[in-house]
């Protein structure tokens, strides 16, 4: 049920970065989510459709990249995937190991449609937009 709070935060992060890059629309989000980060894709999409309505990210596609949990054994050094029913190293049966991946919870990148800087199409200038490095028309 905490997806609502997650999506509020995700939307703000997306809009902040879109504004910095003078985006006209946000087309897609690439999300990197570890297996141990409890979040339900469908639920995120559901809240996104409601919260992002009326923003430049309303049509954005959410792409989830799931990272399996992997551990490294402290005793024998082997790396292995999480087997929740065992929680022991499959090679030496040690119970001491460290998580090396699987708790990711980040927005990796966004695909945006840039705001063309021609005067007639530049309807929505962003007050906090960064200066464009390209030549003005």
């Amino acid at each position, binding site marked *: 049920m905490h997806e609502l709070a997650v999506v509020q935060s995700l939307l703000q*992060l997306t809009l902040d970065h879109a504004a910095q890059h003078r985006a006209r629309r946000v087309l897609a989000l690439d999300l990197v989510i570890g297996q141990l980060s409890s979040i339900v894709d469908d639920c995120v999409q559901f809240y996104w459709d409601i919260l992002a309505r009326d923003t430049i990210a309303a049509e954005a596609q959410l792409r989830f990249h799931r990272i399996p949990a992997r551990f490294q054994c402290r005793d024998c050094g082997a790396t292995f995937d999480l087997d*929740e029913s065992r929680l022991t190293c499959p090679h030496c049966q040690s119970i001491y190991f460290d998580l090396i991946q699987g708790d990711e919870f980040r927005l990796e990148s966004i695909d945006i449609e840039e705001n063309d800087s021609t005067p007639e199409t530049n309807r929505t200038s962003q007050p906090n937009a960064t200066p464009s490095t390209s030549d003005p028309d």
Partner: protein
Amino acid sequence: MTTKTVAVVENILKANDHLAEANRDLLDRTATAAINFMASPGAGKTSLIVRTIAALKDRYRIAGIDGDIATTIDADRMAEAGVHAVQINTGGACHLDAVMLQNALTQIDLDHTDLLIIENVGNLICPASFQLGVHLNILIASVPEGDDKPYKYPTMYRGVQAVILNKIDLLPYFDFDMAYFRRGVEALNPGLAFFPLSAKTGEGLDDWIAWLEGSIQRILA
């Protein structure tokens, strides 16, 4: 019209994490040790908190914050134990977050508080995702929940500084495999402090209180 990919690479809950840092700064500035108790509903959070307050209130100035979806039952119990308690009703949300704590902190005289006890919403999933900015996160498990919880809720068991196993007075009546439970806790958190106790009978309470006092001293030093 041009499209491009913009790198972001930021934690999705960055805003919450920033507020958590601000909470932590405030707590540090006012020399207030803050402890967040998390557990499933019915594990005995409030009972253990009341016991803990009784054991420490002569030595520390204590305040409490209680998070629940509704009612002031738990904050009332803290207040009965003799501390100033603030109730946060989350209005349906399944966890406390850094904003809720920030608001609650304004209702507490931090300059005259040594120990702040926070009782999170009863839930083994959501509270683990939202940093509050506290010094210690403590998980309270209980015997009737079963010995498999560390395996089923690994995220919750990974992010804590101690695990308490409450209701050990009920061990004779449940098929609770202590070795299996401990192995699950250890695997996720090698060397984690572990306190089997009964908030009802008081068994095992002394070890927990001694550890907590040592931790508070280190935080306030």
